[in-house]
């Protein structure tokens, strides 16, 4: 090990944060860029399935809450792009990677939002799963990412509460509303569990990420936490648990549950979800349509600069 590497590993061991100007192994930098930009893209693409219901929200209060939530997601995307930029990649490069398919986003957003209850289910389950992951990432070794997570976690817990509360209103509502809630739970429960990623044994980046303390807990441990915490929530809603094999295991102190359909997981990641193409096409279309606007700003600023220079001369 070089002295630089030794110093880097010493900081990691001592739980000191790595900061942008510190020396870091190239693989650490790359791994972080991959993870943070993927996280940022997830926030941004995640605006679509929920945005799909802003114009149809069933009450003014729900409309306002959803608007404010989707707006927060955009804000999270911004913090995370900024955190990734401290590692020497620009936002436009990251957007290019998203649009070309080189960078990924959370596969959960490849599932369609078909009813109003899906918006509630996303708030409750998807944001709920994200929080479990993000709480753990507050202790990540890279300073800007860790600080971003602390900030984001505060807002996400509000999202999760509003999602659950919206679900509760449906579950305690008319029979049609309850059926809508059950249907959304049945569809989103499994993909939410898959948000934690493949089993640790199959996870390409896990081992190194744990060693460098980019990740603090394994995919399977985080998933188990989420499974455990969701059982009681489903009970309170009075809905049926989608997992028929769910069973408390006294010895482990955890719930045992069904194996996930990993073929489906990989199939959706690899492009066979209902919305993979749609999400990226939407992003590209909005980005392309915005080009003349961005050009106008550049031209306007240039004119102002030229004028200023002329006045100064």
């Amino acid at each position, binding site marked *: 090990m070089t002295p630089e590497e030794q110093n880097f590993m010493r900081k990691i061991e001592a739980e000191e944060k790595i900061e942008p100007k510190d020396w870091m192994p190239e693989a650490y930098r790359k791994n972080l860029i991959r993870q943070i930009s993927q996280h940022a893209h997830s926030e941004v693409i995640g605006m679509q399935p929920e945005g799909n219901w802003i114009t149809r929200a069933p009450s003014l209060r729900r409309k306002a809450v959803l*608007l404010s939530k989707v707006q927060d997601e955009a804000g999270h995307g911004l913090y995370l792009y900024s955190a990734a930029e401290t590692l020497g990649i620009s936002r436009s490069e990251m957007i290019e990677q998203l649009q070309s398919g080189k960078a990924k986003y959370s596969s959960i957003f490849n599932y369609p939002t078909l009813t109003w209850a899906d918006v509630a289910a996303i708030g409750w389950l998807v944001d709920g799963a994200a929080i479990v992951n993000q709480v753990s990432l507050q202790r990540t070794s890279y300073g800007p990412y860790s600080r971003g997570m602390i900030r984001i976690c505060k807002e996400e817990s509000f999202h999760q509460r509003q999602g659950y509360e919206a679900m509760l209103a449906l579950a305690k509502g008319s029979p049609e509303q309850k059926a809508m809630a059950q249907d959304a739970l049945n569809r989103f429960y499994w993909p939410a569990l898959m948000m934690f990623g493949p089993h640790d044994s199959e996870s390409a980046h896990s081992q190194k990420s744990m060693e460098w303390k980019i990740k603090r807990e394994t995919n399977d441990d985080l998933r188990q936490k989420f499974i455990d915490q969701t059982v009681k929530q489903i009970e309170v809603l009075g809905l049926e648990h989608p997992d028929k094999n769910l069973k408390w295991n006294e010895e482990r102190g955890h719930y045992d549950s069904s194996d996930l359909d990993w073929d489906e997981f990989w199939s959706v990641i690899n492009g066979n979800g209902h919305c993979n193409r749609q999400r990226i096409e939407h992003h590209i279309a909005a980005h392309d349509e*915005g080009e*003349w606007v961005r*050009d106008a700003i550049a031209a306007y600023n240039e004119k102002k600069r030229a004028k200023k220079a002329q006045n100064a001369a």
Partner: protein
Amino acid sequence: MSDAIKAATLEYATRLGDDAVVLGHRISEWVSYGPFLEEDIAYGNVALDYIGRARMFYTYAAELADDGRTEDDFAYMRSDREYRNLLLMEMPKGDFAYSQVRQLFADVYYTLVLPELLHSKDETLSAIAAKGIKETKYHLRRSREWVLRLGDGTEESHKRTQKAVDSLWGYTHEMFDMDETEQMLADAGIAVDVSKLRDAWHKMVSDILTEATLTVPEDGWAVRGGRTGYHTENLGHMLTEMQIVHRSYPGCQW
């Protein structure tokens, strides 16, 4: 409050609520379609302000109606023929220039209307105006900046912005019309006499358009009808979408 004044105030609050909900909805259509992420956030903010304002006006209307209706009954259970919003607010989102020009027209309008409404003898309307004034200051700063940049940006942005100005101009005239209801309320010191604001609006908007190297249109055409429920074809489609879930499950809580 006399019965006549109460009924007129209910109508007035509903009109102002309709303006806010329709414009808020149109702005919300931009979320995830903005030219960059910061704009998605800004659009979300402005839409939220308008939805919030609509809720305050409708809540007051419901209180005056005192017939068990809520803010959502006003927003979701009235048809386009019952809506009383200004036509400008219901025009579709169009391109970015179109939405920003509409926003400028509306923001200048509220910059003039709300300080007058602040002096209303009706305390609730005055309180809603007070909150709106703060929001509008920020809205106008943003839409003004955008129109300047788009008007004086590239050839294409200039062309698009001029086109937007020309296509929306005809819908601005009715913003300054008074009818019997509003006149009665204005005489009672409750409503704003918008007819007196026309020249100030024209001056402020013209100054901004001129600075943006845009041409102020001639007053050749004027479309009217929002306040009587005689709308463009756009509102029906907008409300169809907005009301679909609420109306599909009658009497439900959300």
